[in-house]
């Protein structure tokens, strides 16, 4: 049997030889590349049954096809298509056609006709749908050709009346993706029952299918209409009524799409007026649609509910009257009006009485309601959010909370109203929802002031065992406004309780107290005697300095309340001095009576506020201007000027935190220039090569350092524009030129020089490619000169090239740095471990110990991929650990929190020793834009893209941790 099979295989191989003979002339033209089409043709001819053919096609689909042979392959496929009787094979061929026309560099306009022809003779509905899909691909590949587009649209219209839903779906999709306003469609009226003849436009054709019998087609029709909208076509207002009718469709996907459609129209025609059915009133369209979408929040399908709730959040133009209805609820018990718990709490608060709640029926219904006035079914916007927030599925609740946030941010009065509901959500059963509602409350906190009873509910959450929840709540309290001094007291008490229960929250709680104090100085003032426990006659015990929570609150309140320090007792001043030093980030500089001389500097600082930022900015700009006067890198005195400017800028960065990023950025950039200048001014350039080995080493080190600094400049700072990136790359290019020149001087032999000079030229080219738009700004720079000489450079010998580079480097001027608007340096602070512990972490060698790391990151983009933890052991071993994406939290804009564990292990030590832990910022810079792979796995044949340069920048201070791996006991 096996022998027989083998024979058959050989037989088939022999066929393989035969057929290429016939195609030989064609092969000659296609150079050395093996012809795909020929191979495919052979395969397909070999196929005896449809299963085989399918197998061949599947195999074929796995391999990429070069752009130039696509057309040939398509012809072969089409040939087989016409011969083939099996539907599934034709289907596969049709899908392959679509796939092939997506090949990069291939323009499918040559196969449009063939594809349309196949469509005309096809009987199978499935294949027809697939062919239309192929046409869709072709159409999207040829956006510039109106003729093709027109033909495709005609085809789509012709097949719209097909009985199979898939075909109608594809036709609608095609119309949605390709249909245009300006070209009206003519539906041919022969043999088509649905056609009415005459000129129709895409939108009305599509909207005919809003009433199709198949829900899938209805969905496709709405989707197609939405696609038209996405492509920038203005949807007619008449569609609105039809879309509204679809909101009560039997099928959820139709309703879901209809919600989107209604939303789109409400954004297009917010102000037009629509009538209310069964009355002669009229309202704005956006209000009407808001009501209708609100109604969908109590739909039967949760997908629709999520969609509706999300959509509500983006309807900001709705009138306040309708908006407030969404929170409306009327309670009733035995036909008597009952007040909601929210209303009762508010009244209790207003009457000054504090919660009783002891009596049965203290919520007993009072007045009788008019039976006619009760609206049992939520009509319109009524109670939409009340429903959404109590939904069964947490997805709906989250969507509702988010929508509330968006609406509340744009309407302060609504924010006030939704407060009670948001506070209620703090009690949700799912943590995600609780967390989200806390975040939302923080975001709208500028609009609101919490009442005492509300604050009480909020504070109850402080005991939550989840750290995320507590920290979110602390963050919320930082931004909250409260109304009375009792509130402050309450918050303080609860925070202290929180601190007691969860000591790890120390930093977060202190920070929270800092803001609480500085936001409400006048409310803190009456509490001060109690807080500091001062007494008119008696000396009271001094507070414990390890627990400065109260003092943080008081000092921060004192910052903007000058009468407050008068209440301090003597030791409070001493404590202030101590805390100002030890916790300077929490304790602000204060102007204290009689201590001016001591804190002179501080008080100046705090005195000038925003004016100082302006003057600092001015100073920064002046410094840069001064530096820009340096024409030539060799100008006398230039080095000194740079030295001083760098020093100034560094100090400025320390003093003015707002400008730290910009100042650091400039200083680093100038340092690069300085290094470059120094390297070029060495005497070595005038000396004979063998005499200056030492100087050479210095210059080489300078070049390497410049390269490192440029990577820092590029990746450590956020807010850079392409102009700055170009400047940075320019410096890097200079450094590389320097390196090249140095290599030429030190190394003998041409081989390495040739390759490195080639590499340099490539870099120059890629620079030109990347920063084409920036080139005009780089006048009189090194790169401009190099580019001028480029034709000569690429043809000349390496030695000559080096010579030219050397002179260009020395002649080129200093490129002026233009500062972007906002520039921030990525920073990281490790909060934990603190590095203060004297107790080593003991563990058995060979096993691991987990070290908790808690760090805050600022201005880091995409920390999940870039931030890594490095552990350095005393023996020089270093490990880089990538934290899990879930370990990063985002407590605020531009801020991240990393709470993770790293595992340490080492062989046995005799003494405890310190390891260093620090955070690294990883970067990868590919100098050439990598080309995207075509389809499937076509990269395997291509050479790998130019090696990306990868590296890491340490961006946090290292923290030392004492560890002691012990030998295992036997």
């Amino acid at each position, binding site marked *: 049997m096996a022998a027989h099979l083998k024979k058959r295989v050989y037989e088939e191989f022999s066929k393989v030889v035969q057929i290429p003979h016939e195609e030989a002339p064609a092969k000659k033209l296609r150079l050395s590349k093996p012809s795909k089409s020929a191979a495919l043709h052979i395969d397909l001819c070999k196929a005896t049954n449809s299963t085989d053919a399918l197998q061949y096609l599947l195999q074929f689909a796995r391999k990429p096809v070069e752009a130039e042979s696509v057309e040939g392959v398509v012809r072969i496929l089409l040939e087989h298509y016409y011969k083939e009787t099996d539907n599934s094979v034709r289907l596969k061929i049709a899908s392959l056609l679509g796939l092939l026309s997506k090949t990069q560099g291939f323009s499918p306009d040559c196969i449009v006709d063939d594809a349309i022809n196949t469509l005309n003779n096809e009987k199978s509905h499935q294949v027809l749908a697939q062919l239309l899909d192929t046409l869709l691909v072709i159409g999207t590949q040829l956006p510039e050709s109106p003729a093709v587009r027109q033909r495709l649209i005609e085809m789509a219209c012709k097949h719209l009346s097909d009985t199979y839903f898939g075909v109608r779906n594809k036709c609608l999709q095609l119309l949605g993706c390709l249909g245009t306003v300006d070209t009206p469609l003519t539906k041919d009226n022969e043999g088509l029952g*649905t056609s009415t003849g005459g000129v129709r436009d895409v939108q009305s054709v599509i909207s005919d299918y809003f009433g199709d019998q198949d829900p899938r087609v209805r969905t496709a029709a709405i989707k197609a209409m939405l696609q038209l909208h996405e492509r920038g076509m203005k949807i007619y207002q008449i569609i609105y009524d039809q879309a509204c009718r679809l909101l009560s469709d039997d099928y959820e996907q139709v309703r879901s799409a209809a919600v989107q459609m209604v939303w789109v129209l409400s954004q297009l025609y917010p102000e037009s007026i629509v009538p209310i059915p069964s009355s002669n009133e009229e309202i704005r369209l956006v209000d009407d649609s808001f009501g209708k979408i609100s109604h969908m929040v109590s739909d039967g399908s949760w997908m629709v509910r999520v969609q509706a709730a999300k959509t509500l959040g983006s309807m900001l133009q709705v009138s306040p009257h309708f908006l407030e209805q969404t929170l409306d609820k009327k309670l009733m018990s035995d036909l008597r009006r009952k007040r909601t718990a929210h209303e009762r709490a508010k009244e209790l608060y207003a009457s000054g009485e504090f919660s009783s709640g002891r009596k049965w029926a203290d919520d007993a219904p009072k007045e009788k309601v008019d039976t006619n006035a009760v609206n049992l079914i939520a009509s319109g916007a009524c109670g939409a959010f009340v429903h959404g927030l109590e939904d069964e599925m*947490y997805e709906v609740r989250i969507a509702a909370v988010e929508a509330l946030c968006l609406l509340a941010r744009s309407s302060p009065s609504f924010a006030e109203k939704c407060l009670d509901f948001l506070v209620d959500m703090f009690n949700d059963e799912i943590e995600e929802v609780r967390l989200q509602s806390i975040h939302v409350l923080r975001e709208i906190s500028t609009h609101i002031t919490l009442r005492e009873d509300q604050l009480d509910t909020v504070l109850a959450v402080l005991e939550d065992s989840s750290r995320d929840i507590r920290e979110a709540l602390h963050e919320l309290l930082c931004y909250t406004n409260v109304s009375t001094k009792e509130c402050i007291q309450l918050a303080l008490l609860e925070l202290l309780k929180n601190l007691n229960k969860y000591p790890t929250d120390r930093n977060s709680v202190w920070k929270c107290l800092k803001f609480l104090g500085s936001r409400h100085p006048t409310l803190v003032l009456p509490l001060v005697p109690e807080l500091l426990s001062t007494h008119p006659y008696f000396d009271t015990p001094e507070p414990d300095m390890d627990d400065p929570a109260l003092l943080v609150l008081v000092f921060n309140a004192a910052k903007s309340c000058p009468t407050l320090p008068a209440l301090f007792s003597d030791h409070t001043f001493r404590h202030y001095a101590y805390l100002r030093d030890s916790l300077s980030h929490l304790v602000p500089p204060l102007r204290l009576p009689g201590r001016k001389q001591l804190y002179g500097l501080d008080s100046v600082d705090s005195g000038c506020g925003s004016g100082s930022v302006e003057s600092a900015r001015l100073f920064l700009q002046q410094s840069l201007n001064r530096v820009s006067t340096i024409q030539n890198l060799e100008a006398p005195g230039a080095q000194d000027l740079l030295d001083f400017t760098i020093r100034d800028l560094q100090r400025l960065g320390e003093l003015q935190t707002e400008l730290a990023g910009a100042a650091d950025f400039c200083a680093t950039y100038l340092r690069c220039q300085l290094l470059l200048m120094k390297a070029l001014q060495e005497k070595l350039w005038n000396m004979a090569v063998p005499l200056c080995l030492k100087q050479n080493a210095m210059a080489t080190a300078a070049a390497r350092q410049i390269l490192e600094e440029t990577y820092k400049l590029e990746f450590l700072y956020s807010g850079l524009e392409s102009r700055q990136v170009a400047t940075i790359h320019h410096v890097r290019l200079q450094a590389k030129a320097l390196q090249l020149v140095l290599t030429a001087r030190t190394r003998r032999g041409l081989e390495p020089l040739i390759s490195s000079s080639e590499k340099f030229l490539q870099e120059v080219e890629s620079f030109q490619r990347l920063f084409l738009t920036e080139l005009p700004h780089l006048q009189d720079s090194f790169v401009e000169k190099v580019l001028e000489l480029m034709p000569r450079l690429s043809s000349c010998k390496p030695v000559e090239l080096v010579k030219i580079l050397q002179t260009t480097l020395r002649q080129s001027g200093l490129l002026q740095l233009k500062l972007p608007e906002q520039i921030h340096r990525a920073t990281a602070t490790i909060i934990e471990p603190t590095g203060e512990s004297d107790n080593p972490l003991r563990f058995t060698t060979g096993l691991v110990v987990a070290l908790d790391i808690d760090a805050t990151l600022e201005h880091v983009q995409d920390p999940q991929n870039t931030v890594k933890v490095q552990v350095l052991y005393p023996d020089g071993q270093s490990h880089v650990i990538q934290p899990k994406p879930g370990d990063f939290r985002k407590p605020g804009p531009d801020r991240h929190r990393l709470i993770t564990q790293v595992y340490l292990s080492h062989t046995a030590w005799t003494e405890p020793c310190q390891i260093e832990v620090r955070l690294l910022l990883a970067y990868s810079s590919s100098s050439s834009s990598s080309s995207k792979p075509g389809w499937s796995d076509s990269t395997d044949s291509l050479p790998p893209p130019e090696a990306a340069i990868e590296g890491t920048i340490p961006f946090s201070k290292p923290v030392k941790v004492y560890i002691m791996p012990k030998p295992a006991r036997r």
Partner: protein
Amino acid sequence: MPEIKVTPLGAGQDVGRSCILVSIGGKNIMLDCGMHMGFNDDVDDELEIKAYYAGHVLGAAMVHIKVGSESVVYTGDYNMTPDRHLGAAWIDKCRPDILISESTYATTIRDSKRCRERDFLKKVHETVERGGKVLIPVFALGRAQELCILLETFWERMNLKAPIYFSTGLTEKANHYYKLFITWTNQKIRKTFVQRNMFEFKHIKAFDRSYADNPGPMVVFATPGMLHAGQSLQIFKKWAGNDKNMVIMPGYCVQGTIGHKILNGQRKLEMEGRATLDVKLQVEYMSFSAHADAKGIMQLIRMAEPRNMLLVHGEAVKMEFLKGKIEQEFSINCYMPANGETETVSTNPSVPVDISLNLLKREMALGGPLPDPKKPRTMHGTLIMKENSLRLVSPEQALKELGLNEHQLRFTCRVQLQDPHSDPDTLHRIYTHLKSVLKGYTIQHLPDGTVMVESIVIKVSSSAEDTNTKVLLLSWSYQDEDLGSFLSTLLKKGLPSGLC
């Protein structure tokens, strides 16, 4: 006319009793009547039953009963607001002929459950922090589990240490079933049960009688729920004297029970044997009911879209209000029969008819494949009723099957017309006239002196008395009845004078 009859036997305008008799499609069905364990009930072949989630207690279901194309939905008790351990009732757009719904809370709209929960938790938490004991009298099933989950998760969230006890007995058995049927609970419990089954309580332990005297704070769930007997009463007596303690009544208390008395503020209770009990502990009331309120009922109606509505399980006055609302909002009939009264609802069931493929294909060839809502079409066929089946076939096939000969039925009609022209001229004038009026029809002027419009033949002859009076002879077949009668009326009006 087919009908559905509904007779409540216990549940009509009444709370607390049940049983409803429904006659549908020739079958009698007893709803909510209780069954004898161990008896096998035969379910009819033609009866279709579908259960929907009702959310009231674990395993509660609404049933959709269908016989042929007539259907009834009976809700039983249901809850439209999700709670801590169960989801909300849900039904699809099944459009039943009658929806029979409970209406316990027909005149109530409830506040959000969150406020209630928060109040409850806050009170328990405060008492426990003070060092007091909390007694929660419950019935074994339903709300007991809800409150357990509520406290359990709260304890977990807030890291509390005070013990929670659950009095033994039926409740333990019930909890066992809750553990088993996780799929019937709500989203949260279903999602987290892979890590931990929420009903495997971490903080809630079984209660022992001796624990009641333990010092320190604790929370105890004890049966029964109205403090009328049993363990809950025993514990209550022990704890009543201390004002740090608290009792929370989570539900309704019947008049005469201790629960009812203390809720009404009575501070001195007379116990059996002359002894009096001073009630110093705090008494709280909190309603955790799992029935749909008026809004919930309306929401269910909106979801199911029934053709008729029938209310049971409620007080007549309250039902009256809801009935009015339902009729107003949905414009459907709403009934509320009392016990023993029968309501009859006539239904309009759809009758399935088989249509022959040939007829369909012919129809499709005539007017395109897809139905167009804007242009309804009529279709001609013959309905054959034979042996309990209905078929729609083409007339030819019907004739063939029934072995009948086709008979032609023709209508003829004479129309008198005043026209001075000669016969052929008149005929020609009629021809041109019809040609201008009937566009899109085939009109032929045949050489044998007739005009054919489709299959209608028109002949002209002069009257014997008066040559100016022409007699038109129209003849059409039964199939062209519409066109024929149109033509005859048209021609009776005479010919317009402007014709040549």
